[in-house]
C-alpha cells in the first residue's frame, strides 16, 4: 500500500461526508422517515443541474441554494400527493423522487454535457477526484469539496446543538411539540433542507445512491447500540468516520491482494458500513442476536435448575432423603427432562458447581441449601395450582402444566401475594402440602434474562 497526500485528502473528505450525513440521517431514522433521505438525495439532481445552467457555476454556495430549494419542493410535493391523491407516503415519495431524478438526469445529459458533471459521478461519486480541485487559504491548498463539507457539517452541528431539545421533541412526539408551540411541521422542513444540503455537499464523495447508505446505516447501527439520544448521535457519527478510514484502506489494499486494481472508496465505505451493521445486529449488548440467544440459554438453564431442584424436593417429601438417579430424573411422571439427557447433564453439572446438589454413588443428593430452594419452587408450583383451581376453573389434570410454567416466573413478592390469597389453605388441590416459606425466600439462580416478572414489576400505588 502506498499512502500519499491524495489518500489523506480522500479519507478526510470521506470522513467529513460520512459524519455530516450520519448526523442528519440519524434524525431521519429517529423520525421514521428514512425513505425521505432516499427521495431527497435523488431529487437534488435537477436542483444542481438547474443551478448550474442558470449560473454557469459549480461553486458550493450555488449548489447549496439549489439543493435547499429542491429539498423543500420535494417535501411539499410528497405531502401534497399524500394528502390529495390519498396515497401512502412511501408511494408519494416514489413518484416524486424518481420523476425529479429523471428530469435531473436529462438536464445534465443535455445542458451540461461538456462540463465536469458526469452522470456516472452523480450516481456513484468520485472521491478520487476531490483532491484535484483546490482552494488556497493563506498558501495552504485545501480541496474545494472538503471546504464545502466542513461548512455544511458546521451548520448541521450548530443547529443540532442549538435545537437539541426541539429536535428531540419534534421527532419523538410531533403533536405535543406542536401543541407546545414548536411547530413540528416546520422542523420537518428544516430537516429536509439540511438533508438536501448535506446530500449535495457529500455528492462528490459518494454520489446520489451511496449517500443513502451514509444517511441511514449509521443511524440504524446506533438504533441497535444505544438507548439515549446523545450517545445515539455520537455512535452514528463515530461509526461513519471509522467506516471512511477503514473503507478507503480496504479499497486500496483488498483488491490488489487478488490481483485487481483499486476499487472505489465510496463503494467500499458503504460496504464497510453494511458490515458494521451486520456486526451490530449480531453483537449489540441487549438487542443483538447473540445477546438474546445468550439470555434465552441462561433462562433455560435457570428453569432447568429450578425443575431439577423441584423434583428433588418432591423426592425428599416422599422418601425423607432427596436423591434421584439420572434415570429417575428422566422417568418421573411429566418430567421436563424426559428424553433430554444433555439438558439434564448440563443442569446437574451447574447445580453441583453451585453446591446445591452433590453426587454420591450414581445418585444426586440435594444439599440443605438446594432443598430450601427446591421447596420454594414447590411452594410456588402448588400455590399456582391452587390459584388456577380456585380462580381459573382449570381442569385438575391440566393444573400441573399451567403451574409448571408460572413457577419459574414467581418472585418472592408474587409468591407472598399468592400465599396471602390462600392463607389458611395448606395443600394444593390434590392434597399435597404446600411447603412453608423458607427464610429468606431466595430465588434460585435468578435468571438475569428479562422475564415477564421484570417487565410487570409495578411499584404499588
Amino acid at each position, binding site marked *: 500500500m502506498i499512502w500519499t497526500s491524495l489518500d489523506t485528502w480522500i479519507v478526510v473528505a470521506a470522513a467529513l461526508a460520512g459524519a455530516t450525513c450520519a448526523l442528519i440521517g440519524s434524525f431521519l431514522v429517529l423520525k421514521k422517515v428514512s425513505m425521505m433521505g432516499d427521495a431527497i438525495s435523488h431529487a437534488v439532481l435537477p436542483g444542481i443541474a438547474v443551478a448550474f445552467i442558470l449560473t454557469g457555476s459549480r461553486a458550493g454556495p450555488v449548489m447549496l441554494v439549489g439543493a435547499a430549494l429542491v429539498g423543500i419542493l420535494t417535501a411539499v410535493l410528497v405531502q401534497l400527493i399524500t394528502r390529495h391523491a390519498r396515497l401512502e407516503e412511501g408511494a408519494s415519495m416514489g413518484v416524486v423522487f424518481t420523476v425529479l431524478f429523471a428530469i435531473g438526469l436529462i438536464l445534465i445529459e443535455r445542458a451540461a454535457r461538456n462540463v465536469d458533471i458526469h452522470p456516472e459521478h452523480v450516481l456513484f461519486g468520485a472521491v478520487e477526484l476531490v483532491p484535484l480541485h483546490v482552494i488556497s487559504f493563506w498558501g495552504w491548498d485545501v480541496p474545494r469539496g472538503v471546504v464545502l463539507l466542513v461548512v455544511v457539517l458546521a451548520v448541521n452541528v450548530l443547529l443540532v446543538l442549538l435545537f437539541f*431539545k426541539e429536535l*428531540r421533541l419534534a421527532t419523538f412526539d410531533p*403533536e405535543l411539540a*406542536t401543541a407546545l408551540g414548536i411547530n413540528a411541521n416546520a422542523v420537518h422542513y428544516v430537516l429536509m433542507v439540511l438533508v438536501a444540503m448535506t446530500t449535495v455537499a457529500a455528492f462528490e464523495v459518494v454520489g446520489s445512491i451511496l449517500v443513502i447508505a451514509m444517511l441511514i446505516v449509521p443511524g440504524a447501527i446506533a438504533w441497535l447500540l444505544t438507548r*439515549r439520544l446523545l450517545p445515539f448521535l455520537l455512535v452514528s457519527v463515530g461509526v461513519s468516520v471509522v467506516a471512511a478510514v477503514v473503507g478507503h484502506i480496504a479499497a486500496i489494499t483488498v483488491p490488489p491482494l487478488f490481483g485487481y486494481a483499486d476499487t472505489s472508496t465510496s463503494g467500499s465505505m458503504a460496504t464497510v458500513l453494511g458490515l458494521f451493521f451486520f456486526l451490530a445486529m449480531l453483537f449489540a449488548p441487549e438487542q443483538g442476536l447473540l445477546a438474546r440467544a445468550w439470555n434465552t440459554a441462561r433462562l433455560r438453564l435457570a428453569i432447568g435448575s429450578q425443575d431439577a431442584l423441584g423434583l428433588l424436593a418432591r423426592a425428599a417429601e416422599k422418601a425423607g432423603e432427596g436423591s434421584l438417579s439420572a434415570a429417575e430424573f428422566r422417568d418421573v411422571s411429566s418430567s421436563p427432562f424426559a428424553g433430554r439427557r444433555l439438558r439434564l447433564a448440563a443442569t446437574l453439572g451447574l447445580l453441583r458447581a453451585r453446591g446445591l446438589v452433590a453426587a454420591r454413588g450414581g445418585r444426586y443428593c440435594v444439599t440443605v441449601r438446594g432443598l430450601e430452594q427446591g421447596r420454594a419452587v414447590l411452594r410456588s408450583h402448588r400455590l399456582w395450582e391452587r390459584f388456577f383451581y380456585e380462580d381459573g376453573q382449570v381442569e385438575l389434570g391440566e393444573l400441573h402444566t399451567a403451574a409448571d410454567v408460572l413457577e419459574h416466573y414467581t418472585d418472592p413478592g408474587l409468591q407472598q401475594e399468592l400465599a396471602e390469597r390462600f392463607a389458611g389453605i395448606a395443600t394444593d388441590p390434590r392434597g399435597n402440602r404446600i411447603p412453608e416459606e423458607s427464610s429468606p425466600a431466595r430465588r434460585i439462580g435468578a435468571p438475569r434474562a428479562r422475564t415477564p416478572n421484570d417487565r410487570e414489576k409495578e411499584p404499588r*400505588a
Partner: protein
Amino acid sequence: MDATAPVSGPIASEQTPSSDADGNRCALHIRDLTVAYHRKPVLWDVDLDVPPSVVAGIVGPNGAGKSTLIKAVLDLVPHASGTVEIFGKPYRKQRRLVGYVPQRESVDWNYPINALELVAMGLYRTIGWFRRVGPVYRRRALEALADVGMADLARRQISQLSGGQQQRIFLARALVQDADVYFMDEPFSGVDAATEKAIIAILQRLREAGKTVFVVHHDLETVREYFDYLIMLNMRVVSAGPVADVFTPENLRRTYGGRLTLLDRAVDAMGRSR
C-alpha cells in the same frame, strides 16, 4: 367521587357567551366548530361551554370525533369553521395554561430516551429556545415522576416500561407543565389496576386544585365514578352537562344508538359526491 364542581352560571345553552354575566369565564368555549378529514366532516357544528374546575369525561362511539375534538382545541387539526377559546382566548395565546396527554400509541416507545427525559419534555416551553434542560428542571421532572409513583424508574429507557408505566410517565409529562386545563386522550386504555388507581388519584388531586380536566373515556360503567361533567359526542355534541343531568338512557341511546343515523348517511353522501 361526588360532583364538587362549583358551577358558576349557565352551563350549556345555545346563548351562553364565553363568559357569563358575572364575568366568570368558561374553561372551554366552542362555537360552531366543524372539522373535516378529506372534506368529510368528523365534527360538525360543535357548540360547547364547559365551566372551570370540573373533571369532564368525553364519551361516544368509535369514530365519534373524541380525539379530533381534543386535537381541534389544541390546533393540531385544521378547523373548517368555528371558534375555540380557552378561558376566553384562542389556544395559541393560552398554550402555557394547557397540558396534553396524547394517546399512548401515538409515539414510538423504542425512541432512545429515558423516562426522566420524556417527562422533562413537558417543560420545553418553559425552558425556552436554545437552552438545556438544567438541574432545576430535571428536579421538577423527577418530582412529577414521583407523583405518579415512578421515581425509581426515572433512568429506565422507555421501551423497558410496561404499558401502565408508559401511561403514567405520559401523565407526569403533562403534570410537570403545571397547567390549568388538561386534555387526556384515553389515559385509561390498556392499563393495569395499579395505574388506573394512580390516574384516578391524580384526577382527584387536579380537581381539588381547581384544575379543569378533559378525559376521553370508553368505559361507560365508570363514568359516574370518575367524572362530574360529561360530554356525549357523536360528530355533534349530543349532550353536555353535569353527569347527574346528562348521563341518561335517552342520551346514551342518542349517542350510541343505531348503526347509521340520518346525519351519518347524509355525511357519507357528502364525502362521496365531492
